């Protein structure tokens, strides 16, 4: 059971520091329970995930020891330029209509934080017997014909089509597979769906510089929990190799009886920028930015308060126009041409009054779409 604690001086932390190559503290957010590794001595900070709670020191228990005892072996550097990030922030903050006051480029830039999400990588040796169907492309000759009364008969065109011939294959393999990814966070899939795929081939060996530049999220899944996600990926890699071995273009119904040996788990760090803005209820709205390509994911909310204010101004303007039009219409009883002017003014006032609903409707629609 993890508890936020005022002290953090156990020998276990020292062991972890040695593993991570840096004197580190383990911090936890009391609001969202996200846990981070930070260089020791870093001032208490707001959680870069929920932006609601402050980070407190954490006393590591057996569970956290398990996951932290595997320091990162590699990381993906923040390769997107700051110009690109700021440009995307600018574009995001330029809408919607009636955006909250807090949703502006300067605020978002100021609150930008670097975070590393963890991902497990596993290496293993596999011995297995396998069976599958291997697909071989082959060509057949077909025809497309055309008939027309006006062109007096048939014209025929020979075409070639590619088909697949499936043949059974079996065999044995003894191969090694390296860097098979598996999620190290419970909500990994949802997070990655928001910012899209990472280019894992750009990984570099871990250095303490990465730790100093960012918040490093600690895994909350053990390697035992992560293995069921890695095993299918190992099977896919093996199936592809068996396809190549059989000199086939396709493979299907791959089955095997694997014997895994020498599993070696390492950690890979995935780069993400986070920032936030406050909505009408002063609730932080998280924005994520992909650390490699700058893709931005965030919900744009409209400020109902701003919309109400704008609607009020329009309504007041409509009232003023209405009163003036009434006066002019009254004068128009004596000077007839003014009657028409007054009438037009009244119609304009009614239309303007009806238009006062628009800001509210727009803000409501924007927030409804954001929920969907």
């Amino acid at each position, binding site marked *: 059971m993890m508890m936020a604690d005022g002290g953090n001086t156990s020998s276990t932390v020292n062991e972890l520091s040695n593993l991570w190559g840096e004197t580190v503290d383990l911090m936890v957010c009391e609001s969202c329970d996200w846990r981070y590794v930070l260089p020791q001595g870093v001032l208490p900070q707001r959680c870069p995930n929920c932006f609601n709670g402050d980070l407190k020191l954490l006393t590591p228990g057996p569970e956290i020891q398990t996951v932290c005892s595997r320091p990162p072996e590699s990381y993906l550097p923040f390769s997107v330029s700051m110009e690109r990030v700021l440009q995307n922030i600018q574009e995001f903050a330029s809408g919607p209509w009636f955006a909250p006051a807090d949703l502006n480029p300067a605020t978002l830039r100021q609150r930008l934080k670097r975070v590393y999400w963890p991902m497990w990588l596993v290496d293993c040796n596999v011995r297995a017997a396998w*069976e599958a169907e291997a697909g071989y492309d082959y060509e057949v000759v077909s025809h497309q014909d055309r008939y027309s009364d006006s062109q007096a008969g048939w014209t025929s065109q020979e075409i070639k089509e590619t088909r697949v011939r499936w043949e*059974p294959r079996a065999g044995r393999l003894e191969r090694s597979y390296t860097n098979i990814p598996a999620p190290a966070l419970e909500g990994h899939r949802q997070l990655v769906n928001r910012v899209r795929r990472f280019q894992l081939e750009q990984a570099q060996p871990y250095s303490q510089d990465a730790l100093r530049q960012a918040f490093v999220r600690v895994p909350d899944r053990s390697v035992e929990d992560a293995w069921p996600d890695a095993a299918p990926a190992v099977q896919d890699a093996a199936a592809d190799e068996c396809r190549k071995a059989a*000199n086939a273009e396709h493979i299907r119904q791959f089955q095997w009886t694997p014997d895994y040996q020498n599993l070696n788990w390492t950690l890979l760090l995935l780069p993400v920028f986070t920032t936030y803005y406050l909505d009408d209820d002063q609730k932080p709205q998280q924005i994520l930015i992909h650390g490699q390509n700058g893709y931005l994911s965030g919900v744009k909310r409209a400020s109902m308060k701003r919309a109400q204010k704008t609607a009020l101004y329009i309504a007041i303007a409509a009232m003023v126009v209405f009163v003036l039009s009434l006066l002019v219409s009254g004068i128009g009883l004596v000077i007839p041409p003014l009657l028409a002017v007054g009438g037009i003014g009244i119609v304009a006032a009614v239309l303007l009054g009806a238009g006062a609903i628009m800001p509210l409707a727009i803000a409501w629609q924007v927030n409804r779409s954001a929920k969907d």
Partner: protein
Amino acid sequence: MNKTFPPPGYISTESLVTGIEVYKPAPVKIEDERETVEFKCPQCGATTAYSVVDGGLTCTHCGYYDAPQKPVVGKQAGEMEFTPQALAQASLGWGEERKELECQSCGARTLVPSESLAHTCVFCGSNKVIQRMASQDNLRPRFLIPFKVAMEKCQGITRQWLGSSWMTPASLKQVAGLNAFAAVYLPFWTFDSTTDANWRAEVGHQETESYYDAGDKEWKTRTVTVWRWESGKVQLKIDDLLVGGTAKLSTILLDKIKSFNLNELVDYDPKYLAGFHARAYDLPLEKAWEIARQQMREATRNACREQASTSQIRSFSMNLDFSDETWRYVLLPTYVAAYRYEEKIFQVIINGQTGEITGQRPVDWAKVWLAIAALLAPGLLLGLIGLVTLPLGGLGVIIGGIGFVLLVAGIVIAIIIGVQANRMGEA
């Protein structure tokens, strides 16, 4: 997964990745790979032949019987696809080459046509089946329908057929030379395909419209044709379309006996051919496929035209896609004979499975012209009587009308008879 490794019937094959072994099913061995198979009775050494009556290989000397062990595969018989390799191999012509066979029984050397698949030695009577020709392995016949109709029945079938039409000469039934039937396995191609067509055409609809006749100063109605564009889609699945594989026999006659029941196809076994003639194809696959495609697209075009709301069609156009095209090379049983009548040769072919007969027959044109004359005479006569009695008023008109109708009917029937008579002699 199989518990034993490697799975039974699998052999090792090349692997392109170190550390991975690959096994594949062993190729099916062709049971009898001999280039030529000779049929001798294992009991008495006499020549054996396939017996239609007994349905197996028999020896007429000692009664030895050996049934072919091949199952009936019917329409499930495997089909091949139109790969460029198959088309290229199938286009290798047989040409006019002849193959020299040395008889294993008596040592005689005989030249046989290259497309002959079976041969009986003229010296000792031993039966041989030629199974392989150089690189034509993919195009060996793999299926056939065994003979079901015995040779002895052919003469009776033919005599009955010869006397079945009133247009033939009366003496035709007694013509000589009808016992010289040759039992021949003829080559055929079968084709399967799906055709998908999109069509578009102007379709005429008869509509009645009113118009004002200025001359008669009144409203009248008339029927006009209104043309409207229509379109549609048709899909046809064509199964086992038969095309003859030899150009040496009349395609008209072959077309008439094509009603083979392909549900009785069996796997090829040389025992079925023992004692019979058999021909390999001399019409290549590509040409046969062209013929089949022509039939398929005409069938599809007719189906498209039938989809139109009326039969008045113009500016018809369609796009047609062939898909799932497959083919088979099969041998089908026939009896072929030729007879002479009044210095002319006529061909007869009998379907060796169903007994259906077709062929050429001489026409007694005297009978035909008499019949035509008899058909036209009443109409002409009544027409003339009608003309003569016209001054008598209504009676002449009625008689003339009846005569006209009879004349028209007679002309139509005469044309039909004339066409049928012409076709009887066609080949």
